[in-house]
């Protein structure tokens, strides 16, 4: 019986060998694939197994971690002033993943980033619990608070930038949400998430970066910049050759001016009272290509990475003459994010130099060593210094004599420039218009702040009263004041 016994022994050996081969297959060959599988909860378990690092504003964390004693996800994210900071931080939820800074800098915050390898190795030997690094933002708590409080229960967004550097100082969006409310994965978190998802007012939408609006009259500064840059206008106080009423090219429709005194108004005068006809004609005179070129130098038609991605603002590259004329006053297909308008303002306030907007100042390891320091970076020069100064002169005129009076800070040594906008939208402009305001403050040392404010459909305000000057300018003023106060 020994011969079949030996054969059976070989068979048993083959069974064991098959198991060994199979084991190598799943644990060696397929290990990475299985480990990275989206159904594998170990990734999220690992993400919340240790205390997450914090996002920091003005040296103080605006996020926190709480030990929930939960058997699956140990630490839960908490947020201080969640609704106010949500457009900056994004959220980190055990059930719904993460977004914005929480997602982009997840590696640093969880401590898994390769740049933290040394810290990890060190804590392995010292036996310390692994901790995440910190993300230090460029934001200013005071400016953010002014922006958020200014918006109040109105729907809208505020972006404030330091023109010299491109540092984002405020990034507010209302209505907002509290990321703490769905940071866990319980039934309560699910309810909060579903409620937010179904909310008609879209509180989760980051209006400051991801929503594009028709800019209306605030776009006129871009048209003015294009007119000056192209040499169509050299003297801002010289009358332009604008008929009243002005007929839109390729159309029989006359351009409606809400303002009076627009016939042959000078560029300065036209911006002060916001003449549609003058800017539509200028846009047509400059031509589509030059308009597109100028708009794109300001950042239109491209996504911005702050590093949180913004939506791309639009200046139509294929419009006909009529469309181009309408686009030039911020209507037709022109659409912009609040961030984009803040960039335009910042570039003008910074004498024509557009700095790349960013909101992460530096990344720190758990023991506060700097891992990465972001430096200001020039993005483009949309206008010459000379043009920029002319634009500043005109915008300051808007605040001191025109529609932007409510933004005047009345501070010694501080000049304020601005532009109002009331953007019509909807079918036949039936919906309540958007109120825009862009402005900057400037001292002898250059400009510390440029702001763009948009207030959407503001319930409770008479349609006639909706104007950039009335609704949005006070918010911009409050933000600029907050920034200037922290500077002095």
């Amino acid at each position, binding site marked *: *019986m*020994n*011969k*079949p*016994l*030996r*054969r*059976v*022994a070989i*068979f*048993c*050996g083959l*069974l*064991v060998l*098959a*198991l*060994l081969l*199979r*084991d*190598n297959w*799943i*644990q*060696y060959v*397929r*290990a*990475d*694939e*299985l*480990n990275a*599988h989206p*159904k*594998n*909860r*170990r990734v999220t*378990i690992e993400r919340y197994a240790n205390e997450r690092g914090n996002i920091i504003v003005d040296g103080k964390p605006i996020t926190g971690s709480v030990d929930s004693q939960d*058997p*699956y996800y140990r630490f839960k994210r908490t947020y201080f002033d969640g609704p106010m900071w949500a457009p900056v931080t994004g959220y980190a939820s055990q059930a719904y993943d993460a977004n914005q800074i929480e997602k982009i800098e997840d590696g640093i915050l969880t401590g898994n980033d390769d740049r933290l390898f040394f810290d990890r190795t060190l804590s392995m030997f010292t*036996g310390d619990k692994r901790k995440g690094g910190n993300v230090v933002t460029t934001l200013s708590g005071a400016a953010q608070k002014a922006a958020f409080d200014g918006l109040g229960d109105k729907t809208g967004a505020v972006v404030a930038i330091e023109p010299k550097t491109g540092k984002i100082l405020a990034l507010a969006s209302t209505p907002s949400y509290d990321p703490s409310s769905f940071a866990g994965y319980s039934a309560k978190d699910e309810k909060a998430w579903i409620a937010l998802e179904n909310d008609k007012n879209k509180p989760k939408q980051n209006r400051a970066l991801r929503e594009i609006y028709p800019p209306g009259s605030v776009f006129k500064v871009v048209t003015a910049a294009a007119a000056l840059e192209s040499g169509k206008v050299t003297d801002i106080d010289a009358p332009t050759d604008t008929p009243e009423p002005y007929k839109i090219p390729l159309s029989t429709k006359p351009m409606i001016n809400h303002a009076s005194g627009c016939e042959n108004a000078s560029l300065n005068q036209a911006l002060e009272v916001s003449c549609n006809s003058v800017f539509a004609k200028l846009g047509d005179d400059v031509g589509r290509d030059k308009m597109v070129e100028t708009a794109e130098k300001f950042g239109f038609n491209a996504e911005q990475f702050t590093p949180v991605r913004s939506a791309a603002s639009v200046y139509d590259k294929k419009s006909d003459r009529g469309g181009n004329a309408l686009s030039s006053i911020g209507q037709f297909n022109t659409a912009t994010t609040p961030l984009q308008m803040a960039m335009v303002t910042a570039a003008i306030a910074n004498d024509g130099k557009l700095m790349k907007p960013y909101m992460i100042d530096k990344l720190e390891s758990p023991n506060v060593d700097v891992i990465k320091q972001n430096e200001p970076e020039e993005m483009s020069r949309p206008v010459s210094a000379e043009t920029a100064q002319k634009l500043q002169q005109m915008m300051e005129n808007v605040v001191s004599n025109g529609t932007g009076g409510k933004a005047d800070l009345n501070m010694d040594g501080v000049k304020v420039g601005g532009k109002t906008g009331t953007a019509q939208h909807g079918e036949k402009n039936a919906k309540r218009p958007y109120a825009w305001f862009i402005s900057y403050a400037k001292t002898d040392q250059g400009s510390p702040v440029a702001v763009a404010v948009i207030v959407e459909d503001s319930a409770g305000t008479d349609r006639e009263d909706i104007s950039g000057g009335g609704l949005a300018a006070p918010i911009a003023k409050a933000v600029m004041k907050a920034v200037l106060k922290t500077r002095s």
Partner: protein
Amino acid sequence: MSVVTNTTTIGAIEAPSRRNTELALLAFAVVIPVFAYLNVGLAIDGKVPAGMLGYGLGLGLLAGVAHLVVRKFAPYADPLLLPLATLLNGMGLVLIWRLDQSPRIISRYKTFTPDAPSQMLYSAIAVAMFVGVLLVLKDHRVLQRYTYISMVAALVLLLLPLVPGLGADVFGAKIWISVAGFSIQPGEFAKIILAVFFSGYLMVKRDALALASRRFMGLYLPRGRDLGPILTIWAVSLLILVFENDLGTSLLFFGMFVIMLYVATERTSWVVMGLLMSTAGAVVVGSTAGHVKSRVAAWLDPFECLKTAPEGSNMAAACDQMTQVLMSFGSGGILGTGLGQGNSDLIGFAANSDFIFATVGEELGLAGVMVFLLLYGLIIERGVRTALAARDPFGKLLAMGLSGAFALQVFVVAGGVMGLIPLTGMTMPFLAYGGSSVIANWALIGILIRISDTARRPAPAPAPSPDAEMTQVVRP
């Protein structure tokens, strides 16, 4: 002329008993799990676990008692079997204890009771069983007498779970019986008793089966009346599968029978027929029984099946479980996460019984799994070696049957868990939580040790014959 009864003139050479080798190996088999226990405690709580001393002493005591009994009652037994079983059992206890510490498993069940203490108790009973086998069974050939009683006993055991009131339907498989609050899995014991029956039956019938056959298409086919038993066993195993939802056990018994038949008759035709029959059976059952169908779907592509299976269905549950197990193995990688630091408890249900091998995979990694597979391989190898060394056909067949069944069980469980073959609900010998399994497997090791002792025992010294003279050694 006087009748010469014994002409041996050379005294028996004492074969080395290897008991000290066994003792040294046993020391490792106790120390390694104790370190593993310490490792788990340090990883989970950061301090030396309170139960370590008790656990170490307990395991040491069991190993010591088993060793002393072997030393006294089976002095020539194979020295590897006992340490291998002790090591696997000890590691199993550590793994079960480790899963007991999982806050997820604790929070999942409203009334959570740790399984490790009861497994410790079962292990003690199992070692008592092992000792009992060695004490009672002085010679394995005694078992031959119980051939037909064994057959009846095995069938009764197998059919018990079908008795209303006695059988307990647990999670879809009717393989448990419930007596006085204890659940017993009779299939585990039936495995050994059936091996006894097969050995006894085949030893008697082997010549008829091997020789009285007709040649047909190059194969030797046996006569119909000799073919009867294999058909009966095949039918019984299918019945068990159909009525008890137990694919693993039927495969195990059938495989064991074919192996033993092949060894007894030395006819390849049995193997071919066995393979054909099991393939046919598998195809029929796989395409009709829904429960098997979902296992097959979960085996073919668990991730895909998870997407297509209707939510909340059995199939979705089977596929989800399979994906969890595979991800457990995948997360382990080459060296594993380390004992106590994995997330294999995500598997949920049956993490410490049917799927305990996934915990090995995740926490000890590829290296650990290969070590465990090789440990099992070594037990099988020692079993086959025992069969080769056995002097009597009954012992050969029994040793081969038991180690073949052991090999098949390891293959079916580990292969199922690793997705090599469709999953069947069987226990990993010694590792998995479960009293029946650990007791039956210790009994199995006991019988193998008894056979190997008989096989390696030197022939009894001949009685001195007064008629024979010692040969004179002539020195040059």
